[in-house]
């Protein structure tokens, strides 16, 4: 019995730490815990450094798939700020009355097809993804990127038989980067910051625009600092960093 429980614990623990955390220096300025979707990691790491150097706050980031973060928050995980990869998850958190104030959209993202360096399989369109013999990896529909990917595919009237439905968008990226998958659907930002894969653009009529909302959580220890952080994200500097990482600004 203990073994089964331990196995269960293992599952739950792993479910809980699907991502990574970045800690800044000794918190001289208000420490903040930011729950952020994993696709935001490269951009937010840089934003975090700036926030410290400008004495706004000392953020620690809890990166994970948005669905995982949502589950954690719904189960009572404490945090200061939530940056989600789609509006639906922010709405769930809002419905559970966990937000201190209304959420704001701080970035947009679009989808792009990730392929190996040099595009060895010569993929040009979403339709190419249904080619026989191609190993395609998508994000699971429970993940925002996965849901958007399905939407894009149905817009393009394409049926794909994926080899795997990854639980984080970064999983899709890694599989393509490692060469285990020939192609995957990820965010534009993922491809920009990766450098290990090439991208094939998806035309706007097939693409979707993902809204990234951000909000302060009720469980915050320092509302002022949390607000300041969000303002920084929305500021020219913050937006500049996001755009450099492949996001679309607001």
């Amino acid at each position, binding site marked *: *019995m203990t*073994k089964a*429980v331990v196995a*269960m614990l293992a*599952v739950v623990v792993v*479910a809980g730490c699907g991502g990574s955390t970045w800690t800044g220096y000794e918190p001289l300025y208000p420490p903040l815990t930011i729950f952020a979707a994993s696709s935001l990691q490269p951009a937010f790491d840089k934003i975090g450094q700036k926030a410290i150097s400008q004495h706004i706050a000392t953020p620690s980031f809890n990166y994970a798939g948005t669905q995982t973060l949502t589950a954690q928050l719904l189960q009572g995980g404490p945090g200061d700020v939530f940056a989600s990869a789609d509006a639906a998850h922010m709405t769930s958190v809002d419905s559970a009355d966990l937000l201190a104030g209304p959420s704001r959209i701080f970035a947009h993202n679009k989808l792009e097809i990730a392929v190996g360096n040099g595009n060895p399989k010569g993929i040009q369109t979403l339709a190419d993804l249904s080619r026989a013999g191609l190993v395609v990896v998508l994000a699971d529909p429970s993940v925002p990127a996965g849901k958007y990917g399905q939407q894009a595919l149905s817009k393009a009237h394409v049926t794909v038989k994926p080899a*795997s439905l990854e*639980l984080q968008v970064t999983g899709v990226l890694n599989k393509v980067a490692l060469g285990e998958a020939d192609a995957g659907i990820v965010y534009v930002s993922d491809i920009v910051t990766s450098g290990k894969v090439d991208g094939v653009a998806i035309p706007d009529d097939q693409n979707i625009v993902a809204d990234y909302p951000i909000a302060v959580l009720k469980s915050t220890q320092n509302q002022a600092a949390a607000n300041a952080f969000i303002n920084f994200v929305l500021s020219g500097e913050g937006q500049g960093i996001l755009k450099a990482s492949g996001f679309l600004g607001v």
Partner: protein
Amino acid sequence: MVLAGLGLLFFLLPLAGLIFRAPWDQALAGITAPETATALELSLFCSLAATAVALVLGIPLALVLSRTTGNLRNLLRALTTLPMVLPPVVGGVALLLAFGRHGLVGSLLYQAFGIQIPFTTAAAIMAETFVAMPFLVIAVEGGLRALDPRYEEAARALGARGWMVFARVTLPLLRPAIFSGAVLCWARALGEFGATITFAGNFPGRTQTVPVAVYVALETRPDSAIVLSLILLAVSLAILVGMRDRWLGAP
């Protein structure tokens, strides 16, 4: 006593949480849902297959381990127990680097036969075997070391050759160790998550074992996740209880 009680509580509380928060009214619907059945079937199939592989490869490995001495033994021991201390995801990555399309062995298989191992059920079985086999090896090796060497000596003195000694003396006397090792191995394989999703990915019916299904369900259908967890718990409990002390004890 107090400490023991705390320890017990530590194990019982999550279990209690699972049971009390369970949506019993939806439990039936959850159990009979096709996704559940698929995940459960796949989990049972993969974990049993992994245990079978572990038995075939692990018993001879344990034999070798028990017969070597010195530095070689320490090295072999470290290698075989490495998966036990490695974080499962790291194990998954290692498997990819070995058996993936660009992996050490995988690339040869891919180029020569077009065989791709990741994202297949076989990959799930391999991932589970990787993390669970050390349990079997350690248990069997322990059993071998505890075995009185004179039984084998007596058999040899009576004229029995290597294979007969192994099959008619060593193996039967090892039965309790093999059994308990196999059960531990199976339980570990059943609960494996990190290596599985890294190496085999997630796809219902092919690689979505119950732990993975629980993870996926956690956000979208948390009640379903709880039901799945309970089912896995019940199945594991049933088998562990069925395995009575008698089987774990000495011959």
